[in-house]
């Protein structure tokens, strides 16, 4: 039921967003009226809250295998928030309909506001931390768009960027924290996490950082005042009534699960109270009414953060009472500032002294809002502040006194706000029309006054909301007259102190330095630091870069590798093995001394032949054959290249200590990896391959069967890479033929070579064909066949040059590569026909008469494709190199 209701509301909001955007396109002059449509859509959130909210759940799976899904719960807490979103949203949009009249981009603004309302609703309904996170980020995003709504303004863009960076970074920290919590609790559901009460310190710190950035807690407060660059309705909606409370929502939901974390309550309380002090002191030094309210919001958020975040039932109840009252009076005050801004053309309180007298209705709205903000008796602000003071006195008298003194500062900036509007006795200029903006503001103000006279109405709702968070709590005692209790005394003291302080502050109306500059300096410093680091680690030298990469690759995994203690000592190895290895090591070390390129190439070849000997010794004939063939071709290619490159290296290899150190470390790392227990383990995969090779793939050579059947897709990718590399060689080098004016290799015909080639070449081709056909059951296969055929090509080229090669091949190398790949792919597609899977194999036995039974297997065709691609690639590389 809830699911349907939510779906309907979200769909209505989506439709409204679309309608608003179309409206703006069709009739920009009346686009401001689309805000009414938006208001109607938003009121849906308040309606959803009317559901019987006995833990109604809804949700749908997104990636079930990962346990990802959207989960929503409608309880008293989310219902309370939905009402705030819906009601404040309606007023704000009604205001917007007039405020935006005649302004460009109205449809965009209204649509973004709607999207925000939906995101915020998702955030408070989310009962799964990942759902919560996604909507959390959605509010960050919509907030960014709204702050930067006047995108022509540099300042607006800057403010939007600051808000997005701060809250975005906090969001990422929070995500990490939430994942850690979910890991520890074994579930992403908020309910299970709270029940599991995880104690991971890092997780809770990260979550706290996320909440602090979103709710503008010190030292992350700076973005909120900067966000006042947003149009006033957005400020009223996002940056006072709803979004900035997301951090408090998060702590309210998760806080009760932090009960076993010792530092939680002291830290949350300290953060909140410090923020309260910081915001209030800053507010006292503002001259812009909107900025004053913004810092006031920071201050008020501090109290809510401390109270709701603590997870202590009495404090949570009090925090919620403050939250509701704050949403009501602060949004009304913001909208009032919007009215003043429109009618007076300024928000500077030094120029607004006449407003109090010349605009009585505005004065009433201001006084009603400020009275609630300063917690003057007979207001909702007073009733809820009393509850908070009672609760904190119940905790300890110290915290009670602290909150009372900090509340005096709230009174002070409230006085500064109100008094400045009544400072000037002479009437100002005749105010411009406020275009009926005052209407929604007055309704909101009246609602506030009414609730102030009967605050008890809210007690039940707020009590239920607190129960939804902490399990059990008694509803707040919201009353008009608390009687002569200590808290009331403290309130009166605070009022008196604040009144004096506020009047005094008016004598120092100098604007304070904004935190925006500090943020910008911070960003500048970060860029400077990045430049310095860059200049050190990225100095332009390729060896240095490679050295860094190697070092990181070697050092980072080391702890994990040596975690299991001592490395085993392997068996020494056989005599033949050692003879090969000594030869290999000698050739390798000689590479460090050689001065001629050709010697280096030959030594590399020697190492390669030693490798193939090792492979043959280890029972890997296929690998050994391939290695020998490849090594021969590599030497050939180098020989071709060395017709261009000078024979001598331009300098001796000079020993550089750091390079030596990195090299030794890399070598040692390789030894450790090779020795670590578990790097060689009995592999069940291989056993399966051995067992299935004959029955499933009709092949006895398991290595070949693996390449062309079990893992044929890998092989297909590989030959594609081979072909691409060959095309690359041709593209890189062939044009050089013209550039360096290289002669087409002048062939010196050698009779001996010609005769030899005439005998050897047919044999090579037959051998290649044999390797291809036999490869499925005997050592060999497509790679070996292609490489042997390439050897034939090399001999052709040596004996009769490029012309001979062209004559022998008849097709271009690139065409050959294409044919080979096509054969492989078509064979693979055939698998779809006979086995419903790409590259699936099939075999048929046919009666070959005198030849006996002949087995036809499709992997043979695939292997032919491999061989053709290999031949084409080598031909391409030779043709490319030969052109130089």
């Amino acid at each position, binding site marked *: 039921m809830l699911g349907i209701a939510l779906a309907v509301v979200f769909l209505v909001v989506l439709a409204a967003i679309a309608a608003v955007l179309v409206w703006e396109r069709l009739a920009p002059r009346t686009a401001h009226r689309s805000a009414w449509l938006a208001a109607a859509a938003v009121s849906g959130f308040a309606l959803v809250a009317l559901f019987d909210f006995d833990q109604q759940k809804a949700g749908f799976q997104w990636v079930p295998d990962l346990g990802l899904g959207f989960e929503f719960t409608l309880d008293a807490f989310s219902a309370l928030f939905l009402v705030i979103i819906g009601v404040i949203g309606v007023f704000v949009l009604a205001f917007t309909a007039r405020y935006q009249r005649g302004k460009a981009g109205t449809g965009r603004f209204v649509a973004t506001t709607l999207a925000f309302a939906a995101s915020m609703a998702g955030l408070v309904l989310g009962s799964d931390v990942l759902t919560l996170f996604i909507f959390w980020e959605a509010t960050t995003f919509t907030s960014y768009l709204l702050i930067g709504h006047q995108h022509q303004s540099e300042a607006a863009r800057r403010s939007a960027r600051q808000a997005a960076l701060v809250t975005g970074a906090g969001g990422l920290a929070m995500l990490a924290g939430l994942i850690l919590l979910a890991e520890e609790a074994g579930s992403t559901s908020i309910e299970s996490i709270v029940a599991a009460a995880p104690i991971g310190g890092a997780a809770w710190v990260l979550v706290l950082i996320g909440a602090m950035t979103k709710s503008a807690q010190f030292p992350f407060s700076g973005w909120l005042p900067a966000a006042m660059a947003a149009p006033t309705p957005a400020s009223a909606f996002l940056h006072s009534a709803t979004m900035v409370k997301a951090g408090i929502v998060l702590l309210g939901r998760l806080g009760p699960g932090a009960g076993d974390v010792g530092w939680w309550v002291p830290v949350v309380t300290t953060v909140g109270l410090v923020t309260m002090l910081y915001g209030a002191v800053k507010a006292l030094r503002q001259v812009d009414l909107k900025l004053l309210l913004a810092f006031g919001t920071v201050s008020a958020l501090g109290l809510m953060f401390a109270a709701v975040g603590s997870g202590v039932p009495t404090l949570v109840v009090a925090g919620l009472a403050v939250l509701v009252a704050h949403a009501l009076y602060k949004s009304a005050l913001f909208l009032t500032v919007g009215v003043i801004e429109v009618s007076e053309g300024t928000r500077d309180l030094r120029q607004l002294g006449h407003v109090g007298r010349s605009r009585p209705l505005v004065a009433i709205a201001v006084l009603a809002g400020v009275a609630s903000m300063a917690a003057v008796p007979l207001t909702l602000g007073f009733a809820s502040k009393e509850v908070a003071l009672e609760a904190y006195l119940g905790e300890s008298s110290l915290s009670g006194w602290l909150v009372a003194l900090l509340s005096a500062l709230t009174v002070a900036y409230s006085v500064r706000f109100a008094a400045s509007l009544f400072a000037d006795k002479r009437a100002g200029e005749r105010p411009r029309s406020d275009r009926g903006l005052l209407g929604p503001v007055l309704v909101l103000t009246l609602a506030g006054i009414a609730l102030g006279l009967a605050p008890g109405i809210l007690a039940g709702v707020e009590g239920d909301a607190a129960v939804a968070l902490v399990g059990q709590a008694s509803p707040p005692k919201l009353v008009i007259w608390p009687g002569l209790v200590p808290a009331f005394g403290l309130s009166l003291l605070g009022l008196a102190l604040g009144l004096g302080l506020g009047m005094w502050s008016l004598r120092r109306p100098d604007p304070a330095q904004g935190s925006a500059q500090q943020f910008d300096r911070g960003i500048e410093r970060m860029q400077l630091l990045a430049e310095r680091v860059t200049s050190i680690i990225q100095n332009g030298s390729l060896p240095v870069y490679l050295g860094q990469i190697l070092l990181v690759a070697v050092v980072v995994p080391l702890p994990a590798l040596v975690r299991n203690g001592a490395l085993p000592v*392997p068996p*020494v190895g056989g005599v033949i093995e050692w003879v090969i290895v000594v030869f290999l090591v000698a050739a390798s070390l000689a590479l460090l001394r050689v001065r001629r390129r050709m010697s280096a190439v030959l030594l590399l070849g020697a190492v390669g032949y030693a490798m193939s000997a090792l492979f043959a010794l280890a029972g890997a004939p296929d690998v050994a054959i391939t290695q020998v063939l490849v090594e021969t071709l590599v030497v050939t290619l180098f020989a071709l290249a060395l017709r261009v490159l000078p024979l001598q290296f331009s300098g001796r290899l000079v020993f550089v200590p750091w390079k030596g150190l990195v090299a030794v470390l890399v070598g040692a790392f390789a030894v450790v990896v090779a020795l670590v227990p578990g790097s060689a383990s009995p592999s069940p995969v291989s056993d399966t391959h*051995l067992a299935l090779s004959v029955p499933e793939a009709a092949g006895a050579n398991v*290595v070949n069967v693996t390449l062309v059947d079990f893992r044929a897709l890998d092989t297909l990718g590989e030959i594609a890479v081979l072909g691409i590399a060959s095309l690359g060689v041709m593209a890189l080098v062939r044009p050089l033929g013209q550039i360096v004016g290289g002669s087409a290799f002048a062939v010196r015909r050698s009779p001996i070579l010609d005769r030899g080639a005439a005998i050897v070449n047919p044999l090579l081709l037959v051998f290649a064909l044999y390797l291809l056909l036999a490869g499925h059951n005997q050592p060999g296969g497509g790679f070996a066949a292609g490489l042997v055929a390439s050897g034939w090509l090399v001999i052709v080229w040596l004996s009769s040059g490029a012309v001979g090669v062209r004559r022998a091949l008849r097709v271009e190398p690139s065409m050959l590569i294409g044919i080979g790949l096509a054969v492989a792919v078509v064979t693979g597609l055939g698998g779809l026909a006979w086995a419903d899977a790409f590259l699936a194999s099939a075999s048929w036995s046919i009666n070959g008469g005198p030849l006996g039974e002949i087995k036809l297997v499709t992997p043979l065709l695939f292997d032919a494709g491999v061989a053709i691609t290999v031949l084409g690639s080598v031909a391409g590389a030779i043709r490319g190199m030969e052109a130089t």
Partner: protein
Amino acid sequence: MSLALVTAIGVLFAVGAYLLLQRNLTRVLVGLGMLAHGVNLMLLNASARLGSAPLVDGREGPVSDPLPQALILTAIVIAFAVTAFLLALAVRTWAATSDDFVEDDFEDRRIASASSGEQS
């Protein structure tokens, strides 16, 4: 796994890394080839067991682990492709600069000196 094999792995990696850190492209290329050899030996070293060739022909006795062999075969061919491509790059570099020498990256140098210029 044997001491001989592990020794060869260590030497191949160390020499390969040292040559990789040179500015001469031919040496870099040879170094890359050595590293590829080292990796292939490491794959061989990871075999569950060594024995006769993995052919299912009814012979008795232990059979070598076929999977690492298939991986090595793939790796050899890919290394060949990379070597050919790098060789072409070296030749191209020579044609452009009359040497196959990797100079400092001009743009990176500029950034580095711009930053240090600001510091002073």
